[in-house]
């Protein structure tokens, strides 16, 4: 019979010579992919429908210029991270969001996506992107996602608010006119998270959306924890700097 102390020594000796170990880079890369997939999953329901429903006109925001080229010649914005090499659009998105929401931390990720991906598409294919997404960790209980891009062709345009509908917890669906389209503010719950979103759908079909995903046990708690209100988000939604031309391959 060995004593507890001897058993501890046995355990220490038996496991002391660790031959190798996990790889930090692998953990981070796999973790990032999982986080991206989880964020993409939150695009289900109302917001995905709304984004997918916007018609495609093939032109960026009307009345606001042609937007930024995907391969811009401007120097990189000061302080913005180069998330996707070969284009400045990721940096432009980060800079634009920071201008309107200065309290946000740096983004966790900025990446291109398209109609075939709910989350990121391969960075190298950014020239074929139909939308760009910027993800932020606002607090331990809130993540924020900025999406801007084009909905698939042939889909129904901005559905607006269903007549008289009020979501759970009394969070109303509100419509506000924007410079060249309508802004919709609404919310839904996934069960363990509450998603507040504001969407600006331009007549051309270009759509910008901000989603705040708040972990909470009730609507009241989610509202209390939410970092922004719709009025904070509207100037960002209507900023023409987020626009970009629809790729030729998608026209």
């Amino acid at each position, binding site marked *: 019979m060995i004593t507890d102390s001897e058993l501890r020594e046995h355990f220490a000796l*038996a496991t002391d010579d660790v031959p190798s*170990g996990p790889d930090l880079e692998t953990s981070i890369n796999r973790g990032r992919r999982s986080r991206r997939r989880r964020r993409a999953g939150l695009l289900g329901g109302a917001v995905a429908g709304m984004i997918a429903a916007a018609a495609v006109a093939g032109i960026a925001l009307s009345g606001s210029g042609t937007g930024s080229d995907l391969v811009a010649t401007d120097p990189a914005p000061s302080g913005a991270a180069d998330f996707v090499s070969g284009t400045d659009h990721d940096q432009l998105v980060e800079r634009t969001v920071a201008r309107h929401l200065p309290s946000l931390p740096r983004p966790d990720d900025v990446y291109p996506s398209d109609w075939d991906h709910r989350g990121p598409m391969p960075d190298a294919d950014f020239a074929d992107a139909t939308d760009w997404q910027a993800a932020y960790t606002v607090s331990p209980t809130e993540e924020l996602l900025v999406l801007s891009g084009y909905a698939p062709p042939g889909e129904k345009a901005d559905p607006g608010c269903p007549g008289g509908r009020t979501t759970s917890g009394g969070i109303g669906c509100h419509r506000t006119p924007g410079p060249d389209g309508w802004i919709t503010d609404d919310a839904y719950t996934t069960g363990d998270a509450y998603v507040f979103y504001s969407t600006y759908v331009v007549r051309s079909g270009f759509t910008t959306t901000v989603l705040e995903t708040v972990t909470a046990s009730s609507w009241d708690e989610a509202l209390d924890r939410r970092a922004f209100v719709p009025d904070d988000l509207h100037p960002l939604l209507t900023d023409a700097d987020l626009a970009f031309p629809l790729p030729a391959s998608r026209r």
Partner: protein
Amino acid sequence: MGPSRTSRAPTWESTYCEFFHARQRGFMRTSYAILGSWAAAEDATQTTFTQLYVHWPRIRSETRDAYARRVLVNTCLAAARSRRRELVVDEVPDRAADPAPYDERLDLIAALRSLPVRDRAVLALRFLDDLPVAAVADALRLPEGTVKSQTARALERLHALLASPQETHHDHR
């Protein structure tokens, strides 16, 4: 750390990296004690750290160790279940080249392999990680009384196995 990773790093990632470096060796040792194979331990530890990355911003700093331990133990238990049909592989020691004719390290690991996986987990957490009963109960999501009784039974079995090492090659997961 490659340049692309650095440029994409969210602000909280540095605390994750610190935690990784501080805990990876300990997690490997715990996983090895539970799974009995360094390769399986590496897989379980890698999976654990990936899971931790996914949830890191929401894990409070004061509960990180307890949270991580729960993820590690759950990952090891799941790995053990999935490896039930790999007994032949399990019985080949990772250290085939070890020259010692009698090796206490392998003796203990072989004895542990003969215990149910939950017994291995209890013993690893109590006697390798030196955790108090309450912390083990939290990691395994069991009442403290159950941890105490399970520890006593596991110790009894282990003592018996170590006293008769020739009987330590029957996996009872």
